[in-house]
């Protein structure tokens, strides 16, 4: 993707990992085929988290996690990475969205992710107010299901450990999460 914001402060070589890229997730494969890209929108159900599986082709260490706020930033967001058993590896914690249409980073504990290994990225938001998030909207129930997407009614903004996801009950707009990464295992 093209950066439209100043690069984050770090002295390490970095790249932005888009969890919705076709090289990273099946969800990315499907949206690459069927959607025009994320846009300012709204979260499906307040405090019902959505998660997609992903896999990397090289070892990476996550330095930060982030999202792109919608046209009217606000309310709290939470992103977390889980292993294949849904144990939480790293999370942003509940963080207030700030800055319309900007990529907002949360500095997290450096977290090494191993190539060819299944992980999950989960996203939660506490509001269904329009333009709080940037989402892949218009996803069909079937597209979401074929991508492996799951959900959990958390009932609060902070993503739990472990995640206990269940099958989707409806199509879900997925707010695109990102990670700032560096090569190697930390």
């Amino acid at each position, binding site marked *: 993707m093209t950066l439209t914001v100043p690069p984050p402060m770090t002295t390490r070589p970095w790249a932005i990992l888009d969890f919705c890229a076709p090289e990273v997730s099946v969800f990315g494969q499907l949206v690459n085929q069927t959607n025009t890209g994320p846009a300012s929108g709204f979260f499906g159900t307040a405090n019902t988290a959505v998660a997609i599986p992903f896999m*990397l082709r090289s070892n990476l260490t996550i330095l930060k996690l982030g999202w792109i706020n919608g046209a009217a930033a606000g309310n709290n967001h939470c992103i977390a990475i889980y292993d294949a058993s849904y144990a939480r590896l790293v999370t942003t914690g509940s963080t207030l969205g700030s800055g319309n249409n900007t990529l907002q980073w949360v500095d997290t504990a450096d977290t090494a992710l191993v190539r060819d290994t299944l992980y999950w990225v989960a996203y939660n938001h506490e509001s269904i107010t329009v333009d709080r998030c940037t989402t892949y909207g218009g996803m069909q129930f079937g597209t979401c299901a074929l991508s492996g997407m799951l959900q959990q009614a958390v009932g609060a903004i902070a993503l739990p450990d472990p995640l206990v996801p269940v099958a989707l009950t409806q199509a879900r707009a997925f707010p695109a999460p990102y990670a700032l990464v560096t090569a190697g295992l930390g």
Partner: protein
Amino acid sequence: MTYKSLAYNERSARMRLPQNTLIVPGKFGGFGRLSAATAQAGTANQGYYQSFVQPYSTDIISMSVWNQTGTNNADLGLYDATGTLLGSKGSTASVAASLFTFTPSVPIPVQEGVMYFAAFATAGTATILAFSGSAQNNPRMGRAIQASALALPSPATFAAAGTTVFLPIISIVFAN
């Protein structure tokens, strides 16, 4: 301060797929952008075959399509390039708003660099999440059809897809 970008997704010699899953047809099935996904009904009792080249040797754990509305008998399976059936679900009633999944009792081994055909056959009533083929798009996708192919036959007799529109999205999950 200077910043240096790095490629996070450098290619490995043995290409891995997200979630060990292949969507056919799709980017990792070797195709460029297709159409929007829509719920479509196929032609009654017709088989739809979609070729793909397996990127690495592994086993197939399951194959799925999404049944959006209605119910009817359908079948999912895998063929080799010569049309030999390697495994199939058998004609089975599908359920609306759910995945229609073939889980072989023994995972089906697939080899790196070998072409296979993912196959779906339908009685034609239920709608399935699909892309849209066309006279212009079908030739580049290595797809074929066969009449009277429910349950999926062995061997398959591949016929040109021509102007066939229905192009079911098949998700294949690998063992690793």
